[in-house]
């Protein structure tokens, strides 16, 4: 389980990194925290010929708390976010970090790496999709663009990023004081079997809308309009509404099953986890 050979490049700045990737072509990859890429290389499931280490781009590791917004630099580690003060309304971002692997993974793994790797249960993808985040990317020749999270994730480990594009930051444009993420995995720290995230519009005990996102139910993290419709129809924040919402979510998805966890079971998990997430969200 030793990685295949590659040529190592250390990026000095964002422009240098993107230009170099553009020049080297498809055999080149960015290396951020290495917590997804290196295990794949150790199993020889990934064989980049060039690695461009962006780990020293200090300008990409920041947490910027605005009055109604939050910007997180792509090189911020999960641990940095977990221990930062993210400002009112973004507690859900901080609290979700504890679901990502274990402490020694979180001290190295990065926000940008998670979003780019796009695992179907990645917590950062779930948060970005749930909270309608903007993903800011830089490309070769100084190009920049902003990708709506809802359009970023295409399928199994695939995003809309071009090969030369580097994620620079993820920006959350509105606070989510009543949001929660919950999951189920057999062991502490595992990638979730199913994860559920909700962000409720709730005031004085009445729900008037909200967002529901799920991980582990398909090739990429998804939003569930069917469940959100239930929230928009509104009602008292309580078991009845949450169960209807959860039921709608479970009906809307068709997660792939295997011997140990079939489709029906995963749908049931969706249902129960959405209820749990709703309860945690109102309790905030």
């Amino acid at each position: 389980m030793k990685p295949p050979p590659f040529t190592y490049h250390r990026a000095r700045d964002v422009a240098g990194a993107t230009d170099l990737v553009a020049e080297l072509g498809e055999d080149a990859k960015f290396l951020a925290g290495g917590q997804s890429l290196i295990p794949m290389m150790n199993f020889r499931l990934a064989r980049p010929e060039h690695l461009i280490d962006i780990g020293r781009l200090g300008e990409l590791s920041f947490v910027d708390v605005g009055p109604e917004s939050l910007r997180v630099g792509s090189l911020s580690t999960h641990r940095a976010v977990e221990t930062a003060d993210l400002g009112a309304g973004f507690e859900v971002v901080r609290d979700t970090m504890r679901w990502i692997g274990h402490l020694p993974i979180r001290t190295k793994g990065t926000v940008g790496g998670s979003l780019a790797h796009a695992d179907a249960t990645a917590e950062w993808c779930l948060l970005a999709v749930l909270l309608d985040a903007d993903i800011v990317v830089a490309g070769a020749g100084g190009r920049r663009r902003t990708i709506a999270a809802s359009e970023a994730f295409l399928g199994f480990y695939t995003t809309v990023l071009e090969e030369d594009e580097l994620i620079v930051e993820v920006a959350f444009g509105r606070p989510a004081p009543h949001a929660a993420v919950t999951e189920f995995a057999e062991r502490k720290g595992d990638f979730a079997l199913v994860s559920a995230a909700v962000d409720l519009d709730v005031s004085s005990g009445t729900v008037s809308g909200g967002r529901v996102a799920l991980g582990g139910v398909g090739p990429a993290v998804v939003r569930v309009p069917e469940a959100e419709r239930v929230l928009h129809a509104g009602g008292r924040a309580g078991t009845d509404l949450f169960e209807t919402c959860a039921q709608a979510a479970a009906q809307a998805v068709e997660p792939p099953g295997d011997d140990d966890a079939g489709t029906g079971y995963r749908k049931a998990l969706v249902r129960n986890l959405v209820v749990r997430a709703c309860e945690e969200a109102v309790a905030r």
Partner: protein
Amino acid sequence: MTFGTATGDGERGAGFRVDGTWVGAPVTRKEDPRLLTGGARFVDDIHLPRMLHAAFVRSTVASGHVTSVDLSRVLEVPGVVAAFTAEDLDLGDITPRLDRPPEEYTETSMPILARDRVRFVGEPVAVVLAEDPYAAEDGIEAADVTYDVTPPVLSEEQALAPEANAVHEQAPGNVLLDVSMFASDGIDDVFAEAPCVVQVHTRTGRQNALPLETRGVVAGWDSRAEQLLVQTCTQVPHQVRTVLAGSLGMAESTVRVLVPDMGGGFGIKCVVGREEIAVAAASIRVRRPVKWIEDRKDALSASFLAREQRYDARAAFDETGRILGLDVDVLCDMGAYSCYPFTVGIEPLMASSEMPGVYRVPAYRVRGRAIATNKAPTAPYRGVSRPQHVMVMERLVERAARELGLDPLEVRRRNLITVFPYTGVNNVTYDPGSYLESLNLCERVIADEGWYETRRAAADQGRVLGIGYSCFNERTGYGSDAFAKRKMQAVPGFDISEIRMDTAGAVVVTTGTMSHGQSHETTMAQIVADKLGLPLDKVKIQQGDTDRVAYGWGSFASRSITIGGTAVALAAGNLGGKLLDLGAHLLETPRDNVELGDEGVRQRDDPARGLSYRDIADVAYLKSHLLPKETEPGLQASASFDGVGDGTFSNASHGVVVELHRDTGRVEILRYVCVEDCGVAINPQVVDGQARGGIAQGIAGALFEKVTYDENGEPSAASFLDYKVPTACEIPDVGMHHIETPCLFTDNGAKGAGEGGTIGAPAAVLNAVNDALRPTGVELNDTPITPQQVFDALTGALEVAP
């Protein structure tokens, strides 16, 4: 000279027991400082000049004929030095034997590298040597091996099908062992007439023993010693020497097996592997030392596995819950090859002979089979079959209790062996134990802690709690007579110890056992220190070196402290005798007027008169002209010990409280209580550690771990993401309680303590889960239990048991 003042460094450490003995004291371990500071030396820490690194080209198909092996491109890879096939190395096979007739046992061989056939994905086909492990791995990728693929045999159904492909030509039906060891007369009538007959059908998942340190070896010719030096992490150094020398066609005296620090074993390292032999042979060919360290992917997929069994069991009971008969068919999926020295018989023979366990079973019939499949082979794994058959036995008892409307603990009590020695229907004689007492204490602890009330209160809140128990014994200290009943051709049993005292009065003792985490350097030193009145730091245990240790059977089957510990005690006793002889002579007092104590020999009638060991050693070595004429110089002695009769039985009862999570099906263990009896505990902290670690592995088998394959025989759990070793958040704290029923034949009254935890855990966990499921009518009998099964049971999606 005054007694006891010779040295000042004999301070006794923390934890010293008040009664003045080392045995029984929770002394801190002698092993710890080097392990805590990074100063230990494990196989992969060894660097030798000019050393190369090996990697194996492994079969990518589960079953087939090798049609070509082309290594020419391998040799072009930068850093690669050599590559060898089976033909190049021309090594003898490993052939484990049983003295059983052909209708019972089919002998098969495991080649070191596959020749014409491959029998599992991961089977080694060629070995590549390179300047570093990275280049070696580049090298194996460049190998070109072609196969003529045949349909693999991956399950019991496929193996036993009439038209099944044969994994080994000599066993067309894929049954390598088929033994019916017991069949009581009239047992069919017993079942026909019994008022209550219950059945349990169980399948248990294939597991990996999974020492954290994978297997590994560094081998190279030592021209100064004129020996092949093989440094490898094995539980059985002498057996590795024998098989390795045989396979290479070398004299045993030209092979030295040396075992460095070991990162666990649990059985997987008590068989002889093929990689260490291939590496040794390759190192001779290239005249350079070669290292091989198994990577985790290979350890999970291509090493030795265990525990995939199927039981069809039924038991007959009378109306009061007394067992009338037991009838069992056990089938073990042993994978592609038989392991040396234990053979494919290891699991079915263990189950056949031990199944009745702690209960009085008047009539017994058992059939045990081992089948071959196209999966990685098997080796003994901590507990060997007992975690499974104890689970089956305990499920039978529970089912009978339900059927008869009795308390399952009461049914156990009515059947437990309480009068010892007891000779069972399985022809095994059980020495004294505390079967009933341990069960009663276990129940009392659970009750006193309030778990029955908690279960009731939880039910009122809609929560699902269950309480389960297991009650079992564990044969330890198998002697050669006991092992001979297995009819292995290599019969383990005895152990030999040699002890030397140096000129400073410190001793070195050899043991043929092989500690790999069990703390023998400490516990055996405790035994010897007591025998000779020495401080712990003056006793050094020597193990794991075939040149320095006369002979040994290594460590497995919880034999080390019973057999090995008694051998070191006897050797120390013999040395003590010599010291007394010499002491009496030098003190010019009768032999019966001297005794050992505090690093010296003192006079009984005048304890102020004595000689320190240093004084005696001074004469024995440096002034030997002062010795009596007939006395040999030096201070050394030896002894051997063999287990007596059927060995000695440790026993324990486990109590478990679980909560089943309604929303996810998760099984959470809220409380775990273990009441164990391993006789006299040499070091209670070590005994607790063995039990707790064992329980963790048992829980792993009950709820988490399973080796899986896809329909082509490709391993599908070859990483820690899929093979789910539990973490600190899944394994509960364990409340330990002790009862002490000393063994009558070991020197200190100690019984073995290595495997019990693992044996009792699956049964207790399963019983607790089924207790929690009682309102649903569902019973789960297969392991590992998955969250989905629990979830389905709780939501009514699972069939109710008949």
